[in-house]
């Protein structure tokens, strides 16, 4: 006893004594096992009934949904048949119909969001809105950018997470945001999508083409300098891609630099130049590799 107590102090000794005293006195509560099990069985039965009704509701909801979906795509003729079928169902059909409508609208909204529409949320009791612009490249969803705007007195962006190198304020000025918010969002979305696309291309190049050295790039991904190596001769070629149109994923100008001028004048490299201007960078490099123009 003394040995164990010295470390913990008086309080822990007291609590130890308390536990011991309690365990001596402790009488396990006598409860009828059968009763307990019966109650449990009863509870489970109730639960089963509940689940059954839930399934039923869900099924009829599902049926209504499919009929609704069909209505929107097909002729009106089928509608009547469905109506008759529903009438016999129950007095809850009105409510069910509403619920089906609701899920449908929600799904539509979600679909709209998924294909890259703007997601607009009212904030501060209607005094502002928050718009999110999703970006994607080649079917891959990338970052989502948000703009929080004040509605009054004039439409004004008060908070955003658009990177600073995207000229948001000048876009807002040029696009006449007050009158045509859609056009403004459209150009902004173009800028952001193009930026995300360029960034993704650069990322893919770094991942897929270890032999190509990225000499220079910038935060906006608008200037890219790559170094290729020509097989056999091992000549280095410097390639500068200039994406001067910031709303595009493809470069506006491609320039090669090399010590051996003859290489660049060959038809192959002329083709490469147009290839780089017309196809996404990582794919163009893949083709160039396959053709044996670069290592």
């Amino acid at each position: 006893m003394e040995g164990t107590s010295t470390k913990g102090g008086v309080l822990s000794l007291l609590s130890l004594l308390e536990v011991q005293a309690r365990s001596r006195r402790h009488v396990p509560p006598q409860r009828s096992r059968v009763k307990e099990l019966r109650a449990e069985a009863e509870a489970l039965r109730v639960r089963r009934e509940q689940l059954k009704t839930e399934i039923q509701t869900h099924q009829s909801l599902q049926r209504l949904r499919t009929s609704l979906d069909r209505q929107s795509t097909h002729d009106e003729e089928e509608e009547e048949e469905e109506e008759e079928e529903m009438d016999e169902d129950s007095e809850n059909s009105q409510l069910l119909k509403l619920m089906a409508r609701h899920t449908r609208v929600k799904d539509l909204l979600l679909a709209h969001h998924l294909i890259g529409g703007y997601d607009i949320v009212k904030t501060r009791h209607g005094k502002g809105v928050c718009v999110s612009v999703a970006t994607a490249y080649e079917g891959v969803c990338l970052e989502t950018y948000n703009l929080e705007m004040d509605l009054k007195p004039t439409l004004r962006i008060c908070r955003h997470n658009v990177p600073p190198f995207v000229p948001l304020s000048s876009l807002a000025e040029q696009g006449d945001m007050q009158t045509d918010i859609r056009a403004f969002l459209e150009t902004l979305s173009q800028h952001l999508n193009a930026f995300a696309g360029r960034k993704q291309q650069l990322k893919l190049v770094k991942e897929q083409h270890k032999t190509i050295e990225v000499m220079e790039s910038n935060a906006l991904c608008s200037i890219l300098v790559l170094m290729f190596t020509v097989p056999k001769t091992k000549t280095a070629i410097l390639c500068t891609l200039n994406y001067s149109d910031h709303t595009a994923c493809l470069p506006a100008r491609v320039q090669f630099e090399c010590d051996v001028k003859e290489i660049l004048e060959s038809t192959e490299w002329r083709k490469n130049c147009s290839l780089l201007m017309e196809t996404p960078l990582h794919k163009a490099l893949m083709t160039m590799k396959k053709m044996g123009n670069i290592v």
Partner: protein
Amino acid sequence: MSSLKPFSKLPGLNTANILLVESEEQFQQSLADALVEETSVTVNVRLAKSLPLPLENEESRPRIDLVVFIINLTSELSFQSADASLKYLDPGYFLGKVCFLVTNARNASVPTERLDTVRKLAASLHCPLLFAEDQTPDGVTNATERLLTILKVAAGLVPLATALYLSNLTQCTVPLDIDQPSFD
């Protein structure tokens, strides 16, 4: 403005319900986790930042058998919040169904007057005043055991003991010389 009443609802079978009120919402979580481990009775814990409790939970809330105000002595706000919450309790609670739990009492930065104020408050309401250590697991276990003992009595699960009887024995008393300057 509704006040919490001790006898407005029926008790559950072999069930005790405790309400932990703490403005900082720190200690109450670990305490709650330890309290629900109790096996001999079913303990339900409700956590609140302050009183009054929201009306929309009125239906789902079981009968509260014991209200515990957790006061962190290092923070004046913690005491003020507990003090302000008291008025939302039905007077029936003060017949042994309220207790105060003080943490950080040993902290050197605590002005001694604050502890005295808490003691005076507890004494004036005839409530027990417990001290707890919230940083160590041992302290949490100890505090849990104290609370469980009081809770079982308050919920009427201990034969021959009532909350009022227990609180008569455990209520905080203010020493006579509390306002006298001490000379040691």
